[in-house]
């Protein structure tokens, strides 16, 4: 059964209106995003800054109120839930963030940080039960028991991210949205945290939405991959098919731009960078969002936005002239 799905989701932020008394309006950042995710699976969402990947992640959890479309969680439309129902439902969907230390309250012990969500999600638990659950979560993320009495400033970035994960799993969720969870970490620590998320997925049957700009990390952890550009989904495909042959020229460009730890190959790539700047997400071009930089652009691309269309084999692409 599908765990979470989104249909034509639109998520935006309010911007001030024109003039002193102009009415504020909502500027959509993510438009027309659809996805569905089964339990225990990982969807990777990749794209450059301003593509809306984090905004989509927050919109899915209703941390930002979507302005259009709908999110269905275990068969229920999230928008129809009352605040109280939403709070209970939230136990099942959690989020971890890029800056792990900033995400932790500096005045609380790790035990308190990790057990805190239980006060909201399972208010009936006794203090001893909460404590046991928090210690269990800390153990699951590989932190020794004596960490329970420590404070966030005593942690390295990798340890802090483990605490963030412990806090996310303590309420026994079915889904964790991971928003650039390893981008601020050293390479060796990044690998530890990616492996931990994969282990936890296996043990706890978690579904993950893994938001990252790093295509190589996404390849390792994801079952399927979605590429976003300026607020639009431009490609969505199973992992292996995607990395073997991306269909959207933007996906191709992203992959070609990633420098690989392989000097022979990289020296041959010097001078192949895609020219041009990312257009502002506040004023995306009228046709295809990638038209201003696309090496294969045709006149049609500048005027007509390509719809995300089915290419068979669970692949979708929004391009008039896919690879």
């Amino acid at each position: 059964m599908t765990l979470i799905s989104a249909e034509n989701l639109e998520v935006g932020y309010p911007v001030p209106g024109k003039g002193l008394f102009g009415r504020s309006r909502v500027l959509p950042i993510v438009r027309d995003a659809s996805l569905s995710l089964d339990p225990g699976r990982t969807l990777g969402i990749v794209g450059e800054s301003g593509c809306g990947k984090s905004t989509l992640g927050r919109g899915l959890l209703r941390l930002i109120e979507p302005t259009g479309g709908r999110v269905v969680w275990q068969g229920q439309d999230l928008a129809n839930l009352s605040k109280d129902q939403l709070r209970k439902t939230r136990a099942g969907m959690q989020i971890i963030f890029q800056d792990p230390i900033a995400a932790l309250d500096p005045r609380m012990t790790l035990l308190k940080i990790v057990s805190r969500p239980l006060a909201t999600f399972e208010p009936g638990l006794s203090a001893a039960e909460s404590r046991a659950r928090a210690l269990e979560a800390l153990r699951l993320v590989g932190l020794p028991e004596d960490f329970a009495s420590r404070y966030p400033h005593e942690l390295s970035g990798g340890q802090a991210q483990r605490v963030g994960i412990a806090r996310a799993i303590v309420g026994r969720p079915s889904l964790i949205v991971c928003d650039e969870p390893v981008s601020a970490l050293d390479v060796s620590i990044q690998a530890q945290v990616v492996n931990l998320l994969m282990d936890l997925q296996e043990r706890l049957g978690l579904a993950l939405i893994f938001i990252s700009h790093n295509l190589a990390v996404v390849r390792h952890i994801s079952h399927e991959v979605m590429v976003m550009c300026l607020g639009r989904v431009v490609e969505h495909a199973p992992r292996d098919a995607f990395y073997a042959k991306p269909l959207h020229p933007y996906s191709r460009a992203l992959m070609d731009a990633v420098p690989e730890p392989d000097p022979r190959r990289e020296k041959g790539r010097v001078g192949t960078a895609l020219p041009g700047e990312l257009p502002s997400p506040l004023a995306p071009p009228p046709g295809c969002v990638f038209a201003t930089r696309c090496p294969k652009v045709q006149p049609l691309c500048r005027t007509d936005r390509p719809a995300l269309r089915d290419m068979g084999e669970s692949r979708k692409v929004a391009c008039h002239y896919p690879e």
Partner: protein
Amino acid sequence: MPSTQMTAEPLLSLRDLTVRFRLPDREVVAVDRVSLDLAPGEVLGIVGESGSGKSQILFALMGLLASNGKAGGQALFRGQDLLAMKPAELDRVRGVQMSMIFQDPMTSLNPYQRVGDQLAEGLRVHRGLGRSEARQAAVAMLERVRIPDAAARAMRYPHEFSGGMRQRVMIAMALLMKPAILLADEPTTALDVTIQAQVLDLMAELARENGTAVVLVTHDLGVVARLCDRVAVLYGGRLMEESPAEALFDAPKHPYSAGLLRATPRLDDAMTARLGTIPGQPRAGGMSPGCPFAPRCEVKLPLCDTTQPPLREVGPARRAACHLLEQPA
């Protein structure tokens, strides 16, 4: 002394470069007796994780260490020790023969001054050019780093530039004096991947055309692979390994270099169930009597905790500091 064979006289020679920081309760050794040579026109990568001391090497060279920091050893630029220079002497090297670019170009540019004026200032001070001459040269340099519509852009302020363009402005500024050395501290880390590719291309092209030697400090092995001729791997302030780039990526000698490579996911590798990892956390070094990497090393010997392994020749133009490499195979 390094035994790296150099055909040309090195442009820059670090001899036991050490950087210490005084803290209220103790002293931290951020860079511990690092010796490295840079040949004219060469692109040297310095890689390492947090606390490896990689950026502090550049700050020491530029005289930019924090006020509680002190550099020791020697940093010979064309035979002259930068660390022993008087401020006035250093000013004739810094920003002229040796320039630096930083990770965050926004904080390196003056937000209140037009970009063109910031570039022209250096030319007027160091080259004695007149106002209009300097401005023309600044615009020409902005064109070289492919700022579109450079003449108009020169009249604008840094906040009106995108991140990628700001970094290109920094590169333009750094290369304006045709320095012999460009020091680059994580120059593309804050940029999107397609913009990073542009900036790396630009650095490669300018270094080649001007014969500028580059010291590139980065945590990203992919960036090293694209740009560098030679690589120095740093951990806990110590040089772990130094090697021509291709040889290092083909067959790292030091367990730390090997661990870093294993932990770096690729787009084209045969995927394993889990990424390779290095256990534990990176830690700033200089505290332990042994190898700084020993607490995380999975193949360490008892000796590694107590005695620092010396750097030794482990191949053509390759050095590594590991006791295991001394063992008969």
